[in-house]
């Protein structure tokens, strides 16, 4: 087994276990931390695919900014799932999976649909003609920057406008009504 296969197996195991725990963990704070693990592992997969710039962006934007926003949202929304129920702390894997599959509305249907989707996708992959193994990567960070500022300049600028609008929208949505920033802490 080559080093690449081992590295891929480790990353894939981390990603799939972390994804499962994001969905099934009884405590939502644990979900958030497992999401961070998944995001960093995905950055590792990007590195294996020679997408260096994308791996850095993944860590900065996802594991940094988006995770901070998610954790703030969890802490500020005062959910019951932060403390969780004490019996959930010690349960084993089988009990946890059973609870995750149980839901009040049509229980297993989403899990069955997702499993069907995965089976169909993997069956389709089997029929794919395997492309020739690529040679060394011929793209670099400089190429990414050049492409972003030449061929993709218009989408790039539109994306910056979208981000600005989203940030302003988030501030407007969460500002307390009838008070401005100065007395927001007292209300």
């Amino acid at each position, binding site marked *: 087994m080559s080093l690449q296969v081992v590295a891929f197996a480790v990353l894939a195991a981390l990603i799939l276990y972390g994804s499962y725990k994001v*969905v099934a963990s009884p405590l939502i704070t644990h979900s958030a931390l497992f999401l961070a693990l998944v995001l960093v592992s995905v950055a590792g997969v990007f590195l294996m695919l020679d997408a260096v710039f994308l791996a850095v962006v993944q860590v900065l934007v996802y594991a940094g900014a988006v995770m901070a926003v998610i954790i703030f949202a969890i802490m500020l929304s005062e*959910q019951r799932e932060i403390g969780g129920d004490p019996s959930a702390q010690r349960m084993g894997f089988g009990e946890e999976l059973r609870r995750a599959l149980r839901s009040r*509305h049509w229980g297993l249907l989403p899990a069955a649909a997702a499993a069907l989707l995965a089976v169909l996708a993997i069956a389709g992959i089997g029929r794919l003609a395997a492309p020739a193994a690529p040679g060394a990567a011929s793209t670099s960070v400089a190429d990414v920057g050049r492409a972003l500022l030449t061929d993709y300049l218009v989408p790039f600028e539109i994306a910056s406008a979208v981000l600005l609008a989203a940030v302003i929208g988030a501030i407007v949505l969460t500002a307390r009504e009838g008070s401005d920033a100065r007395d927001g802490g007292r209300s």
Partner: protein
Amino acid sequence: MPLPLPYFLVLGALMFAVGAWGALSRSNAVRVLMSIELMLNAVNINLVAFNRYLTPSELTGQIFSIFVITIAAAEAALGLAIVLMIARRRGAIDINKINTLRG
């Protein structure tokens, strides 16, 4: 010797399926948003893998992934702001109880 392409595609498919399961079956709004982030990441793996194996001299897949990450960041900021607002007004973010607009 590089790994075959289907390794990455299977990983992406499984990760997307787990994310879809979470987005459809959880009732906590923050957890649903986290599951959507999982699905977006699975799609990014697919995009970058196809880019690397099928058109290694171009950057289309990577650029597209960058835009997906950008929009995902905007979506997370707005979605979580909405969650906070709902939590503040109604005290709970169970999406089965947010049915004011139901006809």
